[in-house]
Every structure is written in structure tokens, then in C-alpha cells.
């Protein structure tokens, strides 16, 4: 085996690939060859590193020096300085702003830190993302070298299916797609269901606005999904698995298909895995642009070749799911956690997170935050630690107004709730949800009513139309908020909206309609004064809603005045 004195890791996640990462990588390879360093230095294409806002990112190991916003034209200088002369190329270094305790980030001095020292990584615990940005996702050898497929080997050769179910149950792993149902319990139901044919389905129809974790996990560590699905299949007695991926996720589909092919070549999928009698195969199916297909029964309908309309439950998928057979359906992140749990044990996993929400959670940070991107933290960390610690705070000297947790169907949390622990139960108490792990941060220049209009429009657009409370309700909610942004809503409308929201939550067929009023209700709960200003005073305090009166102060603060 060849040993290299340095490894140059180039992020090839979707977010970086939008910023010419490929050209940077090609240039690196050429430049390293041109200078005769090809035997000493290896250029590796990795999955997402997490710092999407700073992309394309390049990390040079063994030192762990991070370079940001690298362009192809920077490459010759980077190779010359760092790899030839051993000096850091100062102008491309990642510099973390170090805020004084409790202060806004804008003022603090900047400091250079290597990857392990960065605030962005120090607060993280990477179990699901342990390989993302580290290994070449298209190399099964690198996955195996980092402990990959050991858990599957251990399960098949030394554990009974029931023991695998027990281990996952004991770990307390809960569904990472949003609902938080215990994964082990789901597997137990599927394992005990009657029937010879059972299925394991990976839900990769990630459509929740603000969420891109599943995409980056699939791109960064596709074999972890394959191994997790194989473990699930072994546990419940399935021989066929399906991955349902959004049609828009071209790179995820491509990388996963390559990984499946390699796993088959290595006989880690197919017949008689690890010399046992366990057969398992995986097929990818792609969606065709419908948010509702992220709902599990709608996903089955779509996979079966129909309109993605949800089914009435019960029967639950573990009794009658895909093609009417017992089915365990899990989110990408849930499945990516499983191999680590089997390899290291439930007790190890419970060492992270909280009693009722063990383990880690992947979050995607978007909006008005310095480090937009992908992170993984222990459950129970506070919102403040995520936003102001790892996330680097709110940029441009603005102040924090609110964070929406769980994507567009999640609740909005004001500054007073910054210390809420991020786990399933604590967030539910605050009227929000952990959901998909999306965190949308907004500063004080944004209008609550205007953003509520955007949320409402999303649900109106994505309601599948099968049940009346959702189809008509999402339309009326949007009508109300849009009227409010134009100064046409009345106090009476507010009462009607509350009654409508209750009806939708109780009577809608699936979580889409049940959750559609949540963002509106939570903004009404925490920012009622802003609604009152729009409705009673016909005034938009931030100056966002055109046509309404705006205080002069807000105009200048938001940079919208003359």
C-alpha cells in the first residue's frame, strides 16, 4: 500500500458542486502531477464537509487546515505554498469569528484554527456524519477501512434477528424523519407480522424546505445506508429493499447506485451474504416532484405506480405497507445510525443525547446564520448553543428574531426560547418539533406575517387534494395571511383561523394537513403583536409588506428606505 505524506480533501457535496468544486479538484490533480508530487500527495473527492456557505472547501491533512471559497485559479498558489513549501496560504484560510461571551458576533476578533479546533466542529458529535467529508464516497474500500460492514458481519454471523431488534430497541433510537417513533419497536412489529414477503424501505424523499441532510448523507456515505438497510432486512426478515429518492437528487441517486453495484460485486448484497442464508437486494426508485410522497403511505402509493395520496391508518405499514406486505420504512438518517449502534452497542449510543431522545441529530442550518450548512450534535443541546456556538451567530450585526425548527411544517421559536433543549419532547412542549432537523434562522429585518405567508403558500401548493380539511384549509390559511400582508385581514378572521386550524389538525388524513397550521399558530403565539399591527393598525414594522405603512425607523434599519 502506498503511503502519502498529505491528503487533500475536496468537498464534492451538492452545495459545493454548485460552486465549481470539480474544476478545483481537476486543477489540484493536474498541479500535483505537474510538480511531480503525485507519489506523495493524494487528492480525494469526499462527501459534504458541512460548511456549505464557505464552499468549495479543501482540507489538507495531516494538519487539518481548511481552505474556503477556493477557485481553480487559486490552486497553483495553494499547491506551491502549502504542499511544496509547507506554508499556509493565508488569504484562503478559514477564520472563525470569536465572539466575546454573550456578545453579537460582528465585533469579535478573527482567529485561525485547524479543523479539530474550530467551534464549528468542537461542539459536534459525528456518528451519522462520521465518514462525510472524510472518505471518498465512491470507494467501498475506504468505507470498509473505516469500520464499514463490520456491524453487518457481526449481526449475520453472531446475532439472531431478534437480538438485532433488541439492540436497536435498547438504544432508544427514534425515527429521524420527523415523527420520532422508536425504530426498534417498528422493526419488532414488522418482524412479528405474518407473511413470507416483507420489505424494508428507505425514505429518501426529502422535501421539507430547509432540509438537505439526507441528500448529503447519501452523497457523503452511501454505504452506511446500504449497511443500515441490510441490518434492518436481516432483523425483520426481508429480502428486498427499496430506496425512494427525490427525482431532483441526481448526485445522490448516482452515488447510491454506484455503491449498490460495488456492494453486489463484493457480495455484501445479493445471495448468501457473509456465507449465510441471508439474501438481500436493494433497488432505487425515484420520485417525480411531490412533497406529499415523503409521507410513508403516500410513498408506498407512488412506489406502486400511483398518485402519491396517503392511505388511511390503520393498517400500519408494519402490517400492510408496500404492495400490501409488512414493511419497515425508515428515514435515511435513522438507517445511517443503525450500523454504529450494532457495532458499538446500545449502551454506547445511549451515552449521547438525553434519556428519552438518545443519540445524535443532524441539523441543517439555513437563513441568517454565519455557518450555513450541515452539523451533527447530541440530542438535548440548546438552540442557543447551535446558533451562537456552532453556527457562529447571526451575521451583519443584526439580532436574532426567530428560528423555525423542523422545516416549513415546524414551529417558530422566539429569542425567549433559545435555551430550549433540542429533543423530541422538549420541543413539542414549546409548540415546535424536531422534525427533519431543519433550522431556519431569521434576523430582525424579516416580517413574521410575510414569512407566514410563504409557509402557507407552500402547503397550499403541496396539499395532494385527497381530503377536504387539508385541501380547502391550506387554501384558506394562505388567503388569511396574504390578506394580512395587504392590510385586508380583520380581527374576526383571527378567530376563524384558530377554529380552522383545530379542524385541520383533527380531521386531516395525514401529517401534511395536520401540521400545516403549526407554523401559523406558533407565529401567532409568539409574535401576536406583529399580527395585530398588520391587522388593526395596517402597518408593517419591518417595511416588508408593501402597501402598508412603515415606521421610518424600520425603513432605515432594514436598508429599504431612500
Amino acid at each position, binding site marked *: 500500500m502506498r503511503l502519502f505524506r498529505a491528503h487533500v480533501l475536496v468537498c464534492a457535496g*451538492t*452545495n459545493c458542486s*454548485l*460552486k465549481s468544486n470539480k474544476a478545483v479538484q481537476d486543477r489540484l490533480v493536474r498541479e500535483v502531477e505537474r510538480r511531480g508530487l503525485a507519489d506523495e500527495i493524494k487528492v480525494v473527492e469526499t462527501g459534504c464537509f458541512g460548511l*456549505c*456557505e464557505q*464552499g468549495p472547501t479543501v482540507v489538507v491533512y495531516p494538519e487539518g487546515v481548511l481552505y474556503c471559497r477556493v477557485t481553480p485559479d487559486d490552486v497553483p498558489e495553494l499547491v506551491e505554498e502549502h504542499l511544496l513549501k509547507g506554508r499556509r496560504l493565508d488569504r484562503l484560510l478559514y477564520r472563525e469569528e470569536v465572539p466575546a461571551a454573550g456578545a453579537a458576533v460582528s465585533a469579535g476578533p478573527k482567529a485561525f484554527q485547524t479543523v479539530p479546533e474550530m467551534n464549528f466542529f468542537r461542539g459536534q458529535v459525528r456518528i451519522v456524519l462520521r465518514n462525510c467529508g472524510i472518505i471518498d464516497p465512491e470507494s467501498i474500500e475506504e468505507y470498509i477501512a473505516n469500520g464499514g460492514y463490520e456491524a453487518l458481519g457481526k449481526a449475520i454471523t453472531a446475532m439472531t434477528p431478534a437480538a438485532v431488534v433488541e439492540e436497536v430497541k435498547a438504544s432508544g433510537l427514534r425515527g429521524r424523519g420527523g415523527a420520532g417513533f422508536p425504530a426498534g419497536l417498528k422493526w419488532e412489529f414488522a418482524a412479528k407480522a405474518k407473511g413470507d414477503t416483507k420489505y424494508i424501505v428507505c425514505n429518501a424523499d*426529502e*422535501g*421539507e*424546505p*430547509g*432540509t*438537505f441532510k439526507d*441528500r448529503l448523507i447519501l452523497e457523503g456515505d452511501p454505504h452506511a445506508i446500504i449497511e443500515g438497510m441490510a441490518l434492518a432486512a436481516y432483523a425483520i426478515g426481508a429480502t428486498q429493499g427499496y430506496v425512494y429518492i*427525490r*427525482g*431532483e*437528487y*441526481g448526485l445522490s441517486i448516482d452515488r447510491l447506485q454506484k455503491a449498490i453495484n460495488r456492494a453486489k460485486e463484493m457480495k455484501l448484497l445479493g445471495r448468501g451474504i457473509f456465507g449465510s442464508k441471508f439474501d438481500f437486494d436493494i433497488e432505487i*426508485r*425515484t*420520485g*417525480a*416532484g*411531490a*412533497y406529499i410522497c415523503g409521507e410513508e403511505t403516500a410513498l408506498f402509493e*407512488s*412506489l*406502486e*405506480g*400511483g*398518485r*402519491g395520496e396517503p392511505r388511511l391508518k390503520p393498517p400500519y405499514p408494519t402490517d400492510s405497507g408496500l*404492495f400490501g406486505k409488512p414493511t419497515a420504512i425508515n428515514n435515511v438518517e435513522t438507517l445511517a445510525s443503525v450500523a454504529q449502534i450494532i457495532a458499538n452497542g446500545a449502551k454506547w449510543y445511549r451515552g449521547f443525547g438525553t434519556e428519552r431522545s438518545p443519540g445524535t441529530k443532524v441539523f*441543517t*442550518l*439555513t*437563513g*441568517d446564520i454565519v455557518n*450555513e*450548512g*450541515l452539523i451533527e450534535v447530541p440530542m438535548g443541546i440548546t438552540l442557543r448553543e447551535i446558533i451562537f456556538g456552532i453556527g457562529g451567530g447571526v451575521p451583519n450585526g443584526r439580532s436574532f428574531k426567530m428560528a*423555525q425548527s423542523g422545516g*416549513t411544517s415546524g414551529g417558530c421559536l422566539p429569542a425567549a426560547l433559545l435555551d430550549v433543549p433540542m429533543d423530541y419532547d422538549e420541543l413539542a412542549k414549546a409548540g415546535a418539533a424536531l422534525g427533519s432537523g*431543519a433550522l*431556519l434562522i*431569521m434576523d430582525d429585518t*424579516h416580517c413574521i406575517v410575510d*414569512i407566514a405567508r*410563504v*409557509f402557507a*403558500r*407552500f402547503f397550499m*401548493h*403541496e396539499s*395532494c387534494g385527497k381530503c377536504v380539511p387539508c385541501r380547502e384549509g391550506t387554501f384558506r390559511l394562505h388567503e388569511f395571511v396574504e390578506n394580512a400582508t395587504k392590510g385586508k385581514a380583520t380581527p374576526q378572521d383571527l378567530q376563524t383561523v384558530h377554529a380552522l386550524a383545530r379542524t385541520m389538525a383533527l380531521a386531516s388524513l395525514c401529517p401534511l394537513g395536520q401540521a400545516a397550521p403549526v407554523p401559523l399558530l406558533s407565529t401567532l403565539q409568539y409574535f401576536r403583536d406583529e399580527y395585530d399591527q398588520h391587522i388593526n393598525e395596517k402597518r408593517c414594522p419591518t417595511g416588508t409588506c408593501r402597501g402598508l405603512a412603515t415606521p421610518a425607523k424600520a425603513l432605515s434599519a432594514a436598508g429599504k428606505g431612500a
Partner: protein
Amino acid sequence: MAKQEKQAIDVDRVDKIVARHASREGALLPVLKEVQDLVGYLPEEALKRVALGLGLSLSRVYGVATFYSLFYTTPKGKYVVRVCESAPCHVQGAPEVIAAIERELGVPFGETTPDGRFTLEMVSCLGVCGVAPAVMVEDRVYGNLTPETVIAVLQEYR
């Protein structure tokens, strides 16, 4: 005449696609996707061939074809421009980017430019929120857009 040319489809090739998938369970979506890649959209005649080949009613096939936003039952422009206006893009300045696109192309959302070059669509989320605001032109995604850079992107396809 031009309209009739567009309607003419290669029935043999459509039938071949259907035949290749017919034994798979839940074949309809993969079939429709491939037929659309071949024809450019899903005209009634193609839907009829698919229904016949898979032994499904035309109403079922039509119902599926019109349910999903990535399927088209009317001709679309040479390039489909998908613009995200979900909350993360909205917060990062999508409204200004959208206004710039509408000015540049001169058509409202849901319509195709008179020269048949661009179809403009509003979509829910492209899943690249880390680089919002984002736009997708055919299969390529562009992120961190401003009203100026999005015009430059569209110019590439002129």
C-alpha cells in the same frame, strides 16, 4: 403544422420502453419518466400506449401523469427554469431574484416564452438550502444567486 409535428411520437420506441418495464412491480412512474425523456413531454397518444402496454386504464395513467410536478402533459420550453420560493430561499433574497427572472424572461410563472426557449416554474424546494436562493435549469442547480448573477445564468442558455 408545427403543432402536429410535436404530436407525432415514435410509437415503437414508447412500446419498447413499456415492454422493458412491464414485468416490474409499480412500473408506471419509471415508464412515464423514460417516455417523457424520449418525447419531451407526455402527450395523450403516449399515455394511451403506456396504458395499453401496462394493462392500466387511461384515467389512471392520466391521473398519475398530472399528479407529479416533474411530469408534463403539454409541451414545455427547451429549458425548464425551476425557481424555489420556499422559506429558506425567501429569507435569503429569493423575491428579488424572482423579480429579475420575470423581467428577463417576460412571462409569468407556469408559462413558456414565445420563442419556446424557457418554461418558468415555481417549485417548493430544491434541497440545496445551504446555498439559497437557488434555481434549477433543466438538471443543473445554481445557488447563492443575486438579481445580477441569475441573469448571467439565464444568458448561458440564450
